[in-house]
C-alpha cells in the first residue's frame, strides 16, 4: 500500500465519521417528538440504580462510576480507556501501513535474485530488516495497549460490581437526564451535579 492510498483511507474514515455525526445531528425529529416537545424541555431527576451503573460501565468503562457520583474514579477510568484505545488504534493503523510496506520491500528483495548485485540486495535486505523491526514494534505496542484497554474495562466492571463503584455515595446528589431540543438537533445530556 502506498503512502498516498493510506492517507486516502484515513481521510475516508475521517469523512465517514464526520458524515455520520452530521447525519445524527441533522436527523429530523418525529411528530411524536414534536408533540411532546414542550414537556421534553424540562428536566427530571433520576437516581441511578446499581444495574444501570453496571450497564453504563459495560458500555464504556467509567460511565457507571460517573453516573453514580464517583467522579474521580470515573474520570480516571474513562481517560485511561480512551488513551489506551487511541494508542491501540494508532498502532493498529501504523502496523497495517508498515505491513504493506514490508510486503513491498520483501517482494523487491526476492525479485533481485536474478541479474542484480550483492550490494543492491544487501541494501534491500537492510531496509527489509528495519521495516520488520518497525512492524514488530507496532505489533507489540498495539497488543500491549489492547490488553491494557481490556484490563481497564475489566477493572471498571469489577469496580462497579464489587468495589462499590456502582453504588451511590453518601455525598452524591443525583444525575439529571436533560433532553436537548432545539431547531437543529435532538439529543440527550447526562448532567451530574456535585
Amino acid at each position, binding site marked *: 500500500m502506498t503512502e498516498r492510498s493510506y492517507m486516502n483511507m484515513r481521510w475516508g474514515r475521517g469523512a465517514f465519521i464526520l458524515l455520520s455525526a452530521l447525519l445524527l445531528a441533522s436527523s429530523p425529529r418525529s411528530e411524536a417528538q414534536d408533540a411532546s416537545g414542550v414537556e421534553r424541555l424540562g428536566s427530571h431527576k433520576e437516581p441511578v440504580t446499581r444495574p444501570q451503573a453496571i450497564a453504563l460501565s*459495560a*458500555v464504556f468503562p467509567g460511565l457507571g462510576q460517573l453516573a453514580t457520583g464517583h467522579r474521580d474514579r470515573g474520570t480516571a477510568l474513562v481517560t485511561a480507556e480512551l488513551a489506551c484505545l487511541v494508542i491501540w488504534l494508532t498502532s493498529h493503523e501504523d502496523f497495517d501501513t508498515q505491513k504493506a510496506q514490508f510486503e513491498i520491500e520483501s517482494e523487491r528483495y526476492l525479485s533481485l535474485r536474478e*541479474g542484480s548485485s*550483492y550490494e543492491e*540486495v544487501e541494501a534491500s535486505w537492510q531496509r527489509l530488516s528495519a521495516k*520488520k523491526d518497525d512492524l514488530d514494534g507496532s*505489533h507489540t505496542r498495539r497488543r500491549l495497549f489492547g490488553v491494557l484497554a481490556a484490563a481497564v474495562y475489566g477493572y471498571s*466492571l469489577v469496580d462497579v460490581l464489587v468495589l462499590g463503584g456502582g453504588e451511590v455515595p453518601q455525598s452524591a446528589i443525583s444525575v439529571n437526564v436533560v433532553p436537548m431540543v432545539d431547531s437543529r438537533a435532538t439529543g440527550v445530556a447526562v448532567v451530574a451535579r456535585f
Partner: protein
Amino acid sequence: MTTKIFTLGLFLFMIAGCSNDTELSTAYHQNYLAMPTDVEVSLSRGNVEVIWQIESTDNVAAFVVSFTDATGSEETRSVEDPEARSFVEGSLDPESGSIIQVRVRAADENDFLGPLSAVVSLIVE
C-alpha cells in the same frame, strides 16, 4: 448482561485479531557466493594480469573482473569458468603514470553478482 458479553467479546476479538504473521525472508544473498581474496595485479608487455583465490566455488558460474581508471571509467570482463583463478587483459593500453583499480567478484548462472573483492591498484610506470 448481553451488552457485557458483547463488549467483552469485542475486546477479545480485538486482541486476538492482532496477530503478526509476517516473516522475514531468508537472506539468500548471504554466504551464497564467496568473495574472491588475495587479488594481485601485474603488468607485463602491455597486458594486465589479474590473479585471485576463492574459498568456495559453490554456486559460482563465472567471475567478473572490473578495471577502473583514475577518471572513474569502469570496464568489466567476464570469465565464464568457475575454476579460473587468473585473467589476462590485453586491450586496456594503460598510459604511463596512470593508476588502474582492479576488483573481482563471482557470479552465478542467473548473473547475480557476489560481493566485491578488496580493491587492488596497479600503478603503470
